């Protein structure tokens, strides 16, 4: 049997604040935050991310956010595109339904972390997944929470990932 193909898996990291968080966070929050991170997984030449519109996909760097601020190499996977699509469809019906989006608890980075572990067994860098708790641990964050909570982030430019050729 020939060795299975290995597909590279990358993490695209975007700073939603475009640098403002780095400058203003010491004043506002009392601690230094390098950015407000939005991430997506790039595999099989497609970018996948989770937002208020559910799981979406686009060509790499194809959202309105433009090119990523940094790219992290997550590893390689044997998972084929077909299998990955099935997995995403499953996720999109369970844990990452559109309504399940919450900016603190179940956001784009949660999704990316989940997918990265599925694909490679590795997690994404902790400074990204720790961000909500970092913010909420400040008095400012706590105070703003009721206002921040309902915020829905959905980078435009992608199309939803659905169940292909529905047969179940």
């Amino acid at each position, binding site marked *: 049997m020939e060795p299975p193909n290995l597909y590279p898996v990358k993490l695209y990291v975007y700073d939603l604040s475009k640098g403002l968080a780095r400058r203003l966070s010491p004043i506002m929050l009392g601690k230094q935050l390098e950015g407000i991170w939005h991430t997506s997984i790039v595999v099989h030449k497609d970018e996948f991310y989770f937002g208020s519109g559910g799981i979406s996909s686009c060509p790499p760097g194809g959202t309105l956010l433009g090119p990523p601020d940094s790219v992290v190499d997550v590893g390689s996977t044997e998972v084929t595109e077909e299998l990955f699509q099935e997995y995403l469809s499953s996720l999109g019906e369970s844990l990452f339904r559109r309504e399940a989006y919450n900016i603190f608890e179940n956001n784009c980075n949660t999704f990316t972390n989940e997918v990265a572990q599925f694909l490679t067994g590795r997690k994404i860098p902790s400074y990204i997944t720790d961000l909500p708790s970092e913010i909420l641990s400040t008095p400012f964050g706590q105070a703003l929470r009721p206002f921040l909570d309902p915020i829905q982030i959905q980078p435009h430019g992608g199309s939803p990932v659905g169940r292909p050729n*529905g047969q179940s």
Partner: protein
Amino acid sequence: MARAREEARDSQLVSGREPTSRIIRVSVKTPQDCQEFMLAENSSVHHFKKQISKRLHHDTDRLVLIFTGKILRDQDILSQRGIFDGTTVNLVVRTRLKGTLPGPGTLPGPTDHCMHHSEPSTSESAGMLARLGRLAQSSPELTDFLGQLAQLLTAAPESVVQFLENPVIQGLVNEKPAKARQAPESSRQNPQKPEPTLKALETLQNPARQQELLQANKQDLEALTAVPGGDNAMRPVCSDIQQFMLFTLAPLVASKGQNPASELCKEEANAHSSTDTTTTIPTASAPARPLTQKVRAGQATQARSMASNQTHSGCGPRMPDINSGHNLLSQESQQPIGKATLTSQLRPSPSALRKALHVLQQNPALLHQLASGSPLQHYLPLLPILTNPRALQALIQIEKGLQILSKEVPGLGPCLWGPGRGTREPPETRGGGQGQRAGSVQSTWAVLQLLHALANASSQSTQSSLSSFSLPEGCFQQELEHLKAMGFANHDANLQTLMAVGGDIQVAIERLLGLPEAQVPPTDAYSVPPHGEGGKGRERGRGGEGK
């Protein structure tokens, strides 16, 4: 705990025994949930899958286990892959099985053999034809459809080659024999059949003989008159006509592929396909007969004697019909066959096929409805399906699905084929210069109707993106135009949002703007908060603020 484990391991090593397999706890994580399994660490992945399938009630074939990005193969051992106590494995349940199964059956073998001697495309296409024939046998209504398919394809030969060269279809060809082998009555014949035809194949590599073979259509037709009976009165008729049509198709493919060896592959493939039902074995003898004229007689007679051993008592009354039909056919084709060129062989085929379909019509047991002289328009929409390989692929999948359906729910068969006949409006004509076409269309439309019914009834997204997304789009046409006019350019996002909010355009706009819905007041500029006094008919509210 780790230390205890280490000590246990050491003691086992010291004692010289194989470390006994410890029971480990492995978590299986699906997109939906996470479950724990206890099993021995040296058990195989296959065993693990069986346990999972027992608990989660899925087929083991559909389970795909992934660990650190690697897909676990059935023969792997858990501990070898690094799966120890407390690790988590990911599980994906496929919704459909893998397309191509390795075919241990007879068909792929000789087909591979063919490939040594001829271009792969034509040999696989010959196998494809056999597969078409077998499909026809398994479902009598499909013969009509395939007959029309054959007719159409004679008009557009490129699509034949395209159709046959589609790797998906070839994959299905390889898959079919795996199923065919399960038929108990054919298992006996299989080992014997390949040999004579394989030998025939070898000896016929001589190009001169190949040319002669190409002009052997006439003999094929004559051979078809020797149709014995069978259990099912319909089947021999269907299959014979089908085989005949495919015979005439094969030279088409051959002429396209510029390789006469396809004829050989086709004949031998038909020989193999005939092992499915005893009634088609005489058609195997049909190619065998012209072969005998050029090859050592012994092999073919061997084939034929095997054939005669298996024929059941005749189907008497059917034979005159077939014979008359085939005599017509042979007469018709004898004249054109006088021309020796390859290209001229295209001409006998359409007329011969036409006659074949006339025969189909004459035989009432075959057709459910007669539709003689049905116009060409009914066929034309099939053309884009046939020239588009993806559409063909989808159609094949539908066929497969329908087969499975009819197998699983036998009572459903009549329901599937019954309704929706002739209710389809004729689509627009396109270049009606295709000549006369005979034959019924109803079964084709029954298939398409069923497809539509399934597409509409299914709660999940359907087979073709066209049919699935056209419906909600149609519902929200007006809303979509509104949104576009307002500047929401992303059509997909618009549609998605509209679907999510059930067509409420106000809510959709709010969603698209990214505003939390609860906080935006309804944009009703004319709402009047009732004031106690001074309500002197001031209709305009203050909706302008507070947005």
